[in-house]
């Protein structure tokens, strides 16, 4: 099996640790950062190497949506999954909510199996509006 490369960005170390274990057990190769700015830096260098990125939303320095916008500037086609414990408020990030499939938003906590399923689905689908399903 070809290893799928995933980038995780979350300010909580335990979350990263947990996700890493789960994902590696399921055949993913994981890069992780607690600092969104460092993550962005890394993404620039790795450019196009990630099959999917998993982002938390509530982070200091830069929130998940902002980070996603910045990453999109580097790679427009990047596949994203927002995995967060926060309430999802649509307000200021309407553009992101409107362009991404709802599958791309996961609220913690989630069972391991379901998480893997979701990630696979996201990587398969074209996550732009064209294939958006409600």
């Amino acid at each position, binding site marked *: 099996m070809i290893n799928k490369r995933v980038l995780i960005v979350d300010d909580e170390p335990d*979350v990263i640790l947990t*996700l890493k274990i*789960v994902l590696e057990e399921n055949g993913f190769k994981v890069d992780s950062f607690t600092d969104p700015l460092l993550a962005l830096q890394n993404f620039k260098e790795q450019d196009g190497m990630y099959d999917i990125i998993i982002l938390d939303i509530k982070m200091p320095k830069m929130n998940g949506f902002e980070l996603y916008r910045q990453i999109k500037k580097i790679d427009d086609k990047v596949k994203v999954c927002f995995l967060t*414990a926060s*309430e999802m408020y649509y307000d200021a990030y309407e553009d992101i909510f409107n362009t991404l499939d709802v599958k791309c938003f996961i609220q*913690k906590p989630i*069972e391991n199996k379901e998480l893997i399923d979701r990630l696979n689905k996201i990587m398969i689908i074209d996550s732009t509006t064209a294939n958006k399903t409600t």
Partner: protein
Amino acid sequence: MVTSSSSSSFSPIKNAKERTEVVYGIENVINTVLQFLSQTNNKIDACVDYTRPSLSIDFLALKNAFLNAKKRGVKLRYVTEITKDNISYCKQLLTTMVYELRHLDGMKGNFYISESAYLAPATFHEKGKPASQIIYSNVKEIVEHQSYVFDSFWNRAVPAERRIKEIEEGTSSLSAAARLHYKTRIIDNSDEIVKEISRLTASSNKLDNCLNSGEMQYSYNHFFDIKKKLLDKQKKGEHKGIRYITNINNENAHLAKTYLDYGIQLKHVKNLPPMSFGISDKEIALTIEKMDDGKVVQSLLISNETLYLKHFSSIFEELWRNGTDAVDRIRELEQGIEPARIEIIETPRKAVELARNMVKAAKYEVLRMYPSLNAFRRQVRIGALHLFREVVQNGVKVRILIPADRQQIMQVVSEVELALPLPQIDIRSIDKSLQTHIGIIVADRRDSLIIELRDDTKENYYEAAGLAAYSNSKPIALSYASIFDTLWKQGELYEQLKAYSVAQKDFVNIAAHELRTPIQPILSLSEIIRPKVDNKEREYIDVIIRNAKRLQRLAEDILDVTKIESYSLTLHKERFNLNEVISNTIQDIRNQISNGKVKMLYEFDKDLLFIEADKERITQVISNLLSNAVKFTKEGTISIEVEKKDSQVFVIVKDTGEGIDPEILPQLFSKFVSKSFEGTGLGLFIAKGIVEAHGGKIWAENNNNSGNGKEKGATFYFTLPNINQ
């Protein structure tokens, strides 16, 4: 040029040249008169004594000459003294000959004037006999002079009809001079005025006066002695008394006291009518002049007409009824107390002025409440803030309430480029729902002004405002001040509530994040470990997982409860098929049913039932009801029905389980009341919150309520209103 002719020869009036002559001899006189009459084309003015009317009728030649003249269109104005003796002749003159007949007492002159000539019988006449000498002149100046003389008699004379009537009805004991008076007339001779007022006063049986300060003085100067006599009469019971209405102020207070001491009834009125009058039982005297002390009245109207008397009597009585007793008023003046009053101010302009004065005169506090944001804007545009700033610099505290958002208020303030901030002007925002139709100003908790807002859409204050009511009564000002204080406090609470609401929302967000985050690692890693351990340890892991999930459910429920209670439960409404949601939920629940003794009954309605609601949340409600039913039903059936009634959807979940404990039934939808194993005790509370947020209702009952004592279980209902297909 005067020519005299001999007495025997007839000297006709030969030519039109200007001349003045004396004609002698009765025959000649008569001829002269006849010729005069026949040569007239326009008018004849006759001024004759009481003996002449009979002549004009009985002396045929004269009569015919007059009639002929009339036929030719000549207007005859005839003034004479009408008496009992010549009344029938005068009547005849009236009906046959004259254009207008008038009467003048003691008329003694005798002359006739046409448009071009003048005739005067030269000697005093006996009754019935024509003159033996007559003066004739057609000199322009002489004719004009005599015309003037005629006019002055004519204007003083009275119409014959009236005089005739008087004679026929019998005259009163009044003198002839008195009989001449009109029922209503105007006197502009100051001596006559004094005379008339004295007469009216002396002849009165009761006297009411409405005068201003100056007139009171005038009255005192001229008529007080007469009044004193009346007051003596009153003591004997022969007079009904004297009443006065005036405005008592510091200047005339002493005079008022004098009046009171003499026994005149006196009352004070703040606003006197524009006319001053004195009214007895018979007559009224009235003037519209305003006099300053002691100055003489120039023009007086006197009337004994009943209508005038009634009218002014009623005005007087009204003023008397509302007047303040003079004794009280004088006391107030002496003690320097300003009486409490309420005034209605009819024009916005006056109200603005009054408001400004009130604010300027304030010593320690001004309270101002605006009925709307527009009202505030209008006032700011006419300088309200500048006025407040001025006043504040003198140490006065200004508090302002406006029913609008703080942002909107500040925007209006910035329009007038005022130096911000305004520290001592305390502006507080209150909820827009508190918009009213009145503006309130209270100064020093003593003066209050209420202004009606008539039309809030107007740009201009003067068009927007209506009536205003001013009062300097302390109790009234305090009432308004307490309304203001209550709203002021409420404004503070409102701001606090808003801040609290925001804080609550933030709390919910943070709490959500903090509760959910730790659960993920617990669940995830437990699941990872589980397959890697033996059965015994696997059981332990299961306990960990089970409880982590329980914690997770509790965390979600508590978050939901917080949202419901702080009114921050947001619904994301969409159109979806309710039937589909129900069958999906049933499917999930079916998987949870452990034993086969329970059947789920659901008739999948082929009709699509679309509703507009929060899909996830409705699913949550249905799921909760169903899982409750499952938990409490060991055997039997759980049925779900959907009904459409009016514009509502009814969802009914019926089970054959244990039923609801009657003791907790009333509190069924409260927090932590009923708990099943693994349940959180919050499910129904949250279901209620969700249903009610949609505008629906949720309730439950035990099945044995429907009469049949054998029926077990309970039924849960909830409605969703306003469905659209």
